[in-house]
C-alpha cells in the first residue's frame, strides 16, 4: 500500500555519469560509427516551380480561391480548405521582417565570430505572415528589427541554380524601392 510518506521521490537516481573526455580518452568501452548515406529528393510540382522561378529572379505563389490566401511557399493544395489550390501568381521580391535572430552558432552548433543574420520575411503581395526564412545582409546587426522593410538581393543570373540560395539575402529597402 502506498502511504503519504514525506520522504522524497524519486528515492534514488540510477545511472553512471561519464564525460566526453572519458569517451575520447578511451577510459570507457565504446564504439564509433559514421553513417554514409545520401539522398536525392524530387521536389514535387509546387516547390519545383517556385525554385525555377527563383532562377528567373522572381517569387511565385499559389492562390486558394476559397480562403482567399496568396500562399508562399506555394503548395498544390490548401491545408486548411483541403482542396487543390487554384492558380499561380507572381509576387514582389520585397517584404517585412516578421522575426529574426543574430546567430553566433552555425548548423553544427559551432561558435562563430561574425554572426549570421537570419529571420522570416513575409513577402509583399502574399497574404499577411506568408513568407519564408532567409538571411539578411548589407546591414549592421543592431539595425535589424521586426517590421523592417527589406528587399531580396539576387545572385547573378549565371550563378543561380534553382535553389532558395539564388537569393543571397534580404537587404534594407530604402526609399520605398520599386
Amino acid at each position, binding site marked *: 500500500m502506498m502511504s503519504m510518506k514525506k520522504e522524497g521521490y524519486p528515492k534514488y537516481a540510477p545511472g553512471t555519469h561519464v564525460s566526453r573526455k572519458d569517451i575520447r580518452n578511451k577510459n570507457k568501452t565504446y564504439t564509433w560509427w559514421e553513417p554514409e548515406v545520401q539522398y536525392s529528393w524530387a521536389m514535387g510540382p509546387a516547390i519545383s516551380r517556385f525554385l525555377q522561378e527563383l532562377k528567373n529572379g522572381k517569387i511565385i505563389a499559389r492562390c486558394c480561391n476559397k480562403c482567399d490566401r496568396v500562399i508562399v511557399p506555394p503548395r498544390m493544395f490548401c491545408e486548411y480548405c483541403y482542396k487543390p489550390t487554384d492558380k499561380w501568381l507572381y509576387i514582389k521580391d520585397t517584404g517585412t521582417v516578421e522575426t529574426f535572430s543574430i*546567430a553566433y552558432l552555425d548548423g553544427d552548433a559551432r561558435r562563430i565570430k561574425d554572426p549570421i543574420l537570419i529571420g522570416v520575411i513575409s513577402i509583399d503581395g502574399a497574404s499577411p505572415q506568408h513568407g519564408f*526564412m532567409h538571411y539578411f545582409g548589407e546591414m549592421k546587426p543592431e539595425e535589424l528589427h521586426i517590421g523592417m522593410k527589406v528587399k531580396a538581393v539576387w545572385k547573378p543570373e549565371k550563378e543561380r541554380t534553382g535553389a532558395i540560395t539564388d537569393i543571397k539575402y534580404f537587404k534594407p529597402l530604402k526609399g520605398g524601392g520599386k
Partner: protein
Amino acid sequence: MRKVAVIGAGMTLFRRILQETGKELSFLATKMAMEDAGIEKKDLDMVIMGSAPDAFDGIHLKGENLLDGAAAANKPYVRVFNGGGTGVFAPIAGWWHVASGVADVALVVCEEKMGSCFPHPQTAFRHIWDPFLDRPLNTNLVWLFAMEMNRYMTVHNIKKEDIARVAVKNKRNAVGHPCAQLPDENITIDDVLNSEVVAWPVQRLDISPPSDGASALILCSEEKAKKYVEDPITIAGVGWNIDSTMWTNRDLYFPRYVANAAKMAYKMAGIDNPRKEIDFAEPYDPFDYKELQHMEGLLLCDKGEAPILTREGVTQRDGNLPICPSGGLLGVGNPIAATMGQKVCELYWQLAGKAGKRQIPTDPQIGVGQAWGDIMQMGTVIVMKR
C-alpha cells in the same frame, strides 16, 4: 471510457552522457516504477515506449532496440513519437490503452540518449528540417527558437530579465531533485543575462542541456488500482493537437496548438476555469521563454501575462500557481522523451505528497503537464487529479 490511475513512477539520473545503454536506462527507470507500484513484469498487460528522433541514438527502429529493457518482450508493445511532445504523448497513449479497456495495467517508458551523437546533438537536429527551403540555409534549431522568442518578446514588449527569471526559478527548484543535471541554488538573473549569446535573444543559460536519461510510469484501471494503492492519483483529461508544418506562415508569438490541446484536456476533466481550478503546472520549458508561452497556451493566464506573474512570484513553489516545481528541463535536464519524468511523473509525486524537498506546501489537488514538439507545432497536455 474507464478511469485511469497512476500507481508508480521512476526515473534515472539525467546527465550529458550516461554509461548505460538505452535498454539499460529503460530497465532502471522501469524497475523503480515497478518497485513503487509493487508489481512485476507478469502483471503488465501492455507496454508503450516514447523516444524522440532516431538520429540521436543513430539507431533506426529504436523502439525495437529498446523493448527488452522496457519489460516488453512477448507483450503488446508500441512506440510513439512526436518530437519534444513525446514525453506527455507517451502517457496519453498509455491512457488510451487502459481507458479503452484493452489493458488493465500498462507501462509507459520514455528513453533518450543524446550523448552518443557527435559533434553535438544539434547535428542530428539538422535532419528534421524541410530539405527544400530550410536545409540549404545550413540551419541550426536554436535559430528557430531564437526567432520564436524574439517574436514573443516583441509582440508583448517583454524584457529579457523577465524571461531570465524562469531559468533562475527552475534551476533553483531542481536543487531538491536527485536526478537533476543543472541544479543551482545560487544562480541569479544577472548570471543568465551575462551568459554567452548563442543566437540572440537566446543566451546560454536560457537553454536546457542535452541529456541521457529514462523515465517510467505505470497506469492502471481505477478499479484495479485500489488493489495497489489507497487513494489513486487519476488521469482526469488528455489532449493533443498539431499545427501546420508551414511554420513561416504562422504567427509564432502564441502556441494556438497548445491551447487547442489544453481545451480538449480540460473539457474531458470537467475544468471550466483552468486559472481557478488548476493548482500547479509543469509546462514544457526547454527554453525559459517556452515556460511563459506555454502557461499562456495552457490558458493559465492572459497572453503576455506570464512574465508578470513570474516577476510577482506567483509561479514560485510557494506561490499561488507553482510552475515547474520539479525544476523543469532547465534544471533537471532535457533527454527529450524522458522529460516525462518532470512533466508527468512529477504531477504524480506532487499530488501523492511524495515530492520530498520539492513538495508544493499547499496540498495540491489538480495539476497539468504539457510538452511541445515537432517544428513548433505539437501540443500534448495531461491533467491529473488526487
